[in-house]
């Protein structure tokens, strides 16, 4: 295990090397691995990760679903500094957002409380299993906790099909991601499947 993340760029390049066709006499080989086309992406929520992805010519996934602060700056920097690579000719920026879509806004807001509670519990250092939704989040979080969690989860689209569609339409028009990744902590897997189906319907209407 590497003690320092300063080793990260070298580790990424070492990993890329193992996926190349092996050179004659190469002693350390990844088998299986050598000569295989496994796309490498860089993930991050910092300007550093954006710059590294740009420099290495890799697709970049930004963690705006829980660390949105630098999203616009990071994506702009990534696109500006991108250098084409064997893997990727032009920048590919994927933005991650939370979506809680349900039959109506009230039900979606209720489902969202599972994720809000999880983030409050993280602040309180009381991490645990995924909790059921609650009726009134204001009974649960303090005003200070509300401010922090609301900022961290600001890239969340919560509501009926119409509400989420309007929010996504604005987000996609403003930030023009090359791909959208959808996250969200749900307690009930059936509610997550329902949200997924609504999201797919919205995607098809946005065409």
């Amino acid at each position, binding site marked *: 295990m590497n003690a320092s993340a300063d080793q990260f760029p070298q580790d990424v390049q070492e990993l890329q090397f193992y996926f190349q066709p092996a050179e004659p006499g190469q002693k350390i080989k990844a088998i299986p691995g050598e000569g295989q086309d496994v796309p490498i992406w860089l993930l991050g929520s910092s300007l550093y990760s954006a710059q590294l992805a740009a420099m290495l010519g890799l697709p970049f996934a930004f963690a705006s679903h829980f660390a949105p602060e630098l999203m616009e700056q990071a994506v702009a920097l990534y696109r500006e500094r991108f250098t084409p690579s064997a893997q990727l000719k032009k920048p590919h920026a994927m933005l991650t957002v939370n979506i809680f879509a349900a039959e109506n806004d009230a039900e979606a807001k209720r489902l969202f409380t599972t994720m809000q509670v999880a983030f409050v519990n993280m602040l309180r250092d009381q991490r645990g299993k995924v909790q059921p939704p609650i009726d009134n989040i204001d009974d649960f979080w303090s005003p200070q906790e509300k401010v922090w969690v609301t900022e961290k989860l600001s890239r969340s689209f919560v509501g009926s099909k119409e509400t989420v569609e309007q929010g996504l339409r604005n987000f996609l028009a403003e930030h023009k991601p090359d*791909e959208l990744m959808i996250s969200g902590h749900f307690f009930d*897997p059936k509610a997550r499947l329902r949200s997924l189906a609504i999201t797919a319907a919205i995607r098809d209407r946005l065409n």
Partner: protein
Amino acid sequence: MIPFSILDLAPIAQGGTASDAFRNSVELAQEAERLGFQRIWLAEHHGMAGIASAATAVVIGHVAGATKTIRVGAGGVMLPNHAPLIIAEQFGTLNAMYPGRIDLGLGARRAPTSLPHGPCVAT
């Protein structure tokens, strides 16, 4: 429209187990595939009571084995936790099993302080 994809943490709900979480992740991936999502990624987190995807490559193999066309990947592997050779072998193995369907997203956990060829603007 741009592609839509899914990030899954294989959540363990109150009253549930890791086995339940993997069943739910498979069902989510199958439904995402049916609905035309581009990829589903699992994330490496450790020591979290509510997240079952710590052995990320193992879970990716399980989800890829239960689906046919959707891309499956890591979102991400925290590279400082591993020797790069081991990750190349794990994802080379997955790609040999499910050719052309495997993605390898990499995270650093925290921003390092320098770029390989120059100073960092900020972290």
